[in-house]
């Protein structure tokens, strides 16, 4: 069965520090990969996505993610975190084939930012 693992439930970083949020997936083939962010009391906003091509993808708000097929990983990074980045981050996958666009989410990583 397809699954997404975000090993870190909660991460705290200082403002200005670099950030890496981990995501691993379990799937027979390379799925489409996404990172969404949910600010407190808000909906989900798409940060970036990977469908194919360059394995380093750039997203909004200065985020990037790198797809590593050999590790089945799609980690999210940001070189310098801002206080406004405090939120819940969700990694998600969807099968490439099968005709069904069903997002499978990880459990999320809550990011806290210290001033």
């Amino acid at each position, binding site marked *: 069965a397809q699954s997404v693992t975000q090993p870190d439930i909660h991460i705290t970083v200082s403002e200005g520090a670099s950030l890496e949020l981990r995501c691993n997936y379990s799937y027979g083939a390379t799925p489409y990969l996404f990172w969404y962010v949910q600010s407190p009391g808000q909906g989900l906003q798409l940060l970036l996505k990977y469908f194919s091509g360059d394995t380093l993808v750039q997203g909004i708000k200065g985020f990037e993610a790198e797809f590593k097929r050999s590790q089945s990983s799609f980690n999210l990074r940001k070189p310098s975190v801002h206080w406004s980045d405090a939120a*819940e981050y969700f990694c998600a996958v969807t099968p490439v084939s099968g005709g069904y*666009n069903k997002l499978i989410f990880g459990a999320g990583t809550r990011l806290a930012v210290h001033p």
Partner: protein
Amino acid sequence: DTAVSQTPKYLVTQMGNDKSIKCEQNLGHDTMYWYKQDSKKFLKIMFSYNNKELIINETVPNRFSPKSPDKAHLNLHINSLELGDSAVYFCASSQGLQETQYFGPGTRLLVL
């Protein structure tokens, strides 16, 4: 302009009641979804409609019934509400079955 909107934003109701949540998208998408986010923030798909046709129906109690009157709307009706139905319900839409999904702001349902 809000791309995917949901009403109401908050819904507090008693056990046993019947309630509906509405979703509308103005993106011209042909596929819409309902997701449930539980108290631990875990998100799981419930239903998906493509061109008003139900294509995904996860293991959801039949008290939940989606209805899509047209491609821009997907409503969720819940009968005989239970305490465990308390959650945030998100609507989403995409253009086609393989494209990026865009989410609404969520409806926070509390069953007392």
